[in-house]
């Protein structure tokens, strides 16, 4: 039993819903009680979908349990098939139905329906949403293609050369409720098109069951989101010999590596010079204006794919210092650990947001890149933040085109990450100049109480932040004199945490208990080295 106040991922059947709702012509009959219908709102509210997810819930009640729930399941299956006329049917159960073991999948298969039926077994008491999505895509592809395995001749990824056509690929993984998938797909299609590569199918987003049957016509697969598509790509490689690309093209470097990998897999000539920079990120990052970004401390937490990509961009392309890296995805723990190790830090693998918040506090970053929950935590701590991963709120699904992948994705990332830092800096300037006449007219800060503070409020907020941090530092009872506090108050709020920690560390080393302005300056000199 695990006490959960908030969960990053939903149950696995929500993952199955993401696949069903992403596709066309697929319906999902879910053996589940009425409350589970809440999951519809994830799609209609967060993604603002104008269609209900294609899901029929059996909504059985306690009084049904004594009787024949199997009949109830069959009735719902029959009605759903008649009403929605799907081209493929997914049948499964949520946590409660798993316990009563009606086996709706087998029931459906015994009904003599004339359409492909995929029986989903998604263990609700051990697995979560992304796993459920991945398993559903895999089961669906397998279900639709297993008959074709034997008839396939040996797959040649470079067959396009002899067949006198452009190479073509499948893009696998983009789904609803994935982070910016809608725009990533467009960006990657454009990128591949410009490089002479055609798209065979995109799945699950926008695909029909008939499209899935055409999967083997592609020369290679692009595994765009490993959380969703890796198991499917693996199966297609094993059974159809279709190789797949593993590089996730988020960031300029990764996009270059992606193109190189795809070309190699397809047997296309790989230019021996570097891939052209088609993103502004590189120049923007180099420009003199970006000097102040140097060594910014950044804390990263999210799904595996986006967290790792963010860490690489932060370090290699923006010159940040990554002071924290983690994921809520157990399936992605290994690659995240490897990435963290390379950065000389330890990865945080947890589904507990309070642990993430504690680690964030401890790391004293200047920028947080995370999910909607890290945004809340960062806001409480007064640290600028950008959202880079699901779970997300409705405001993380912007109206404008804003991919994360490819050249334009890198542009978007530069803007999305640097903007909150700029705003943080502006807040500081506003704080510094708050006595100037331009500012006396009750400046409204976008951070609410954090920016443009009055002296009194500012003192209070320092005391608060000290209080909040007490648990991890004050075991040895250091005392900040009022003069020391006043000096600390002059430090910009977004580095204040770091300065405070360094000063306390120094004070401890130096064996002084009272921290005044001198200690603060000594510490500053000490850490400058």
């Amino acid at each position, binding site marked *: *039993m695990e*006490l959960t106040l908030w969960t990053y991922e939903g149950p696995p*059947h929500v993952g199955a819903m993401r696949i069903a709702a992403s596709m066309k012509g697929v319906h999902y009959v879910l053996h589940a009680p*009425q409350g589970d219908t809440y999951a519809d*709102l994830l799609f*209609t509210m967060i993604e603002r979908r*104008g269609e209900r997810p294609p899901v029929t*819930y059996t*909504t059985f009640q306690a009084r049904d349990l004594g009787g024949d729930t199997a009949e109830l399941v069959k009735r719902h299956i029959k009605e759903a098939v008649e009403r929605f006329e799907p081209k493929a049917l997914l049948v499964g159960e949520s946590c*409660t139905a798993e316990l009563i073991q009606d086996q709706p999948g087998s029931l459906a298969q015994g009904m003599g329906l004339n359409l492909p039926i995929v029986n989903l077994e998604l263990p609700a008491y051990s697995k979560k949403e992304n796993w459920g999505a991945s398993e559903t895509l895999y089961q669906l592809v397998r279900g639709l293609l297993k008959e074709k395995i034997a008839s396939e001749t040996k797959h040649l990824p470079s067959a396009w050369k002899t067949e006198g056509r452009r190479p073509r690929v499948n893009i696998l993984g983009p789904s609803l409720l994935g982070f910016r998938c809608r725009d990533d797909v467009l960006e990657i299609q454009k990128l591949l098109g410009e490089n002479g590569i055609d798209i065979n199918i995109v799945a699950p987003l926008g695909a029909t069951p008939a499209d899935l049957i055409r999967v083997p016509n592609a020369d290679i697969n692009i595994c765009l989101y490993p959380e969703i598509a890796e198991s499917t790509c693996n199966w297609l490689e094993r059974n159809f010999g279709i190789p797949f690309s593993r590089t996730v093209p988020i960031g300029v470097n990764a996009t270059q590596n992606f193109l190189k990998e795809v070309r190699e897999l397809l047997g296309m000539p790989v230019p021996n010079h570097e891939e052209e920079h088609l993103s502004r990120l590189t120049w923007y990052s180099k420009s003199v204006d970006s000097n102040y970004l140097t060594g910014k401390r950044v804390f990263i937490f999210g799904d595996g794919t986006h967290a790792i990509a963010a860490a690489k961009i932060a370090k290699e392309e923006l010159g940040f210092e990554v002071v924290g890296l983690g994921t809520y995805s157990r399936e992605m723990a290994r690659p995240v650990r490897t990435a963290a190790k390379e950065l000389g830090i330890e990865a945080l693998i947890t589904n507990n947001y309070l642990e993430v918040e504690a680690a964030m506090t401890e790391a004293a970053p200047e920028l947080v890149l995370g999910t909607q929950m890290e945004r809340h935590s960062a806001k409480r701590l007064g640290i600028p933040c950008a959202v880079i991963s699901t779970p997300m709120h409705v405001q993380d699904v912007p109206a404008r085109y804003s991919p994360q992948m490819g050249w334009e994705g890198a542009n978007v990332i530069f803007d999305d990450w640097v903007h909150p830092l700029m705003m943080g800096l502006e807040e500081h300037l506003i704080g510094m100049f708050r006595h100037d006449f331009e500012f006396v007219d009750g400046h409204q800060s976008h951070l609410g109480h954090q920016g443009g503070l009055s002296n009194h409020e500012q003192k209070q907020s320092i005391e608060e932040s000290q209080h909040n941090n007490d648990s991890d530092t004050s075991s040895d009872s250091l005392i900040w004199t009022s003069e020391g506090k006043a000096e600390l108050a002059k430090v910009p709020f977004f580095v204040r945490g770091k300065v405070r920690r360094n000063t306390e560390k120094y004070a401890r080393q130096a064996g002084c208990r009272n921290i005044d302005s001198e200690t603060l300056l000594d510490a500053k000199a000490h850490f400058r080295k």
Partner: protein
Amino acid sequence: MSGVSLLKETGPREVFCGLTSIVWLHRRMPDAFFLVVGSRTCAHLIQSAAGVMIFAEPRFGTAILEERDLAGLADAHEELDRVVNDLLARRPEIRTLFLVGSCPSEVIKLDLARVAERLNGALKGRVRVLNYSGSGIETTFTQGEDGALKALIPLMPPTKETQLLLVGTLANAVEDRLTNLFKRIGIQKVFSFPPRQSTDLPAIGPGTKVLLTQPYLTETARALKDRGAEIIQAPFPLGVEGSQLWMEAAARSFKVKDSLVKETLEPLILRANKALIPYKNQLAGKRIFLLPESQIEIPLARFLQRECGMELVEVGTPYLNREMMQAELELLPNNTQIMEGQHVEKQLDRVRQQQPDLVVCGMGLANPLEAEGISTKWSIELVFSPIHGIDQAADLAELFSRPLHRHDLLNQKQLVHV
């Protein structure tokens, strides 16, 4: 008996389960913690219904059952003890802990009453542990509050004194206002249940007259009656008329002079009716379809029809308690279609066929209907907003007129001279 048509329908439903009530109950009683014993689905439901979370640690959570908990019930009990002890150690401010049953906990027959009893023994009154069901196989949406309140009743001290008890969660400001009005007509002893502090429970007994503020408290009303209280029959305090009848029923029961009641309420009624006019102008003649969710649908329909002039296409309700709804049903026009239960697909077919001007529905259905060109109002907003009482009538009407107003704004002619 009025001439409404009471219909029933079964099929796939699109309704929240009783766990959802935690979203407003935990705000009403800040010294209580609601621990759902359930699955990741339950945890996900509450956080999705609660929406934005800006607070550091919420006063609700889920003890998520895992594979090994299902393997052995004995261990599940131990595990639950461990989770509760950890929680209470971490959150010393908690005075009342509600263990909330879910579908999984009920299907595996985890006896939360026994767990609560054992924990109560161990905690020796430091924290009171209660249990109720919020499961989707037993309860819908607002029925969760019914269960939580019923669980508190045995802890209410006895009294023989004559007093008025308002039952059902109200916004604090509305509660103050209503209490104050009762005092003005001479009913001095007015208490609320649930209280603002879980430990501050009102007393109950033969002298207690209960006035329900919410229509979904069937079990609570029954249990209060068992403690000797008298339930005052009245419509619910939504709209000017409903609130007036509701207050008058209480006044009669306390033998308050008619003239005093009239004197007190008349200026309020005049003012409220005046405030209603602009909304009435907008709503009159418009057709509304209410999908079942909160059980507030029938009183709302009565208000919208009688005071705002709306036409009722269909009034859904997840569950109909005829006795409790009697006074409301009598106020509805003949042939009003009341639909108990749901077949969501067929109901949506009727919505499309009837093309109402406004549909009251859950969050899962709102955008899809909007995309089809039908204006909607979220029913969940109605359980969060201060809508009770004469003074709130205009605010209540505004909630319904806003989507229509917006629809008009977005569909007006383009400016030609700019």
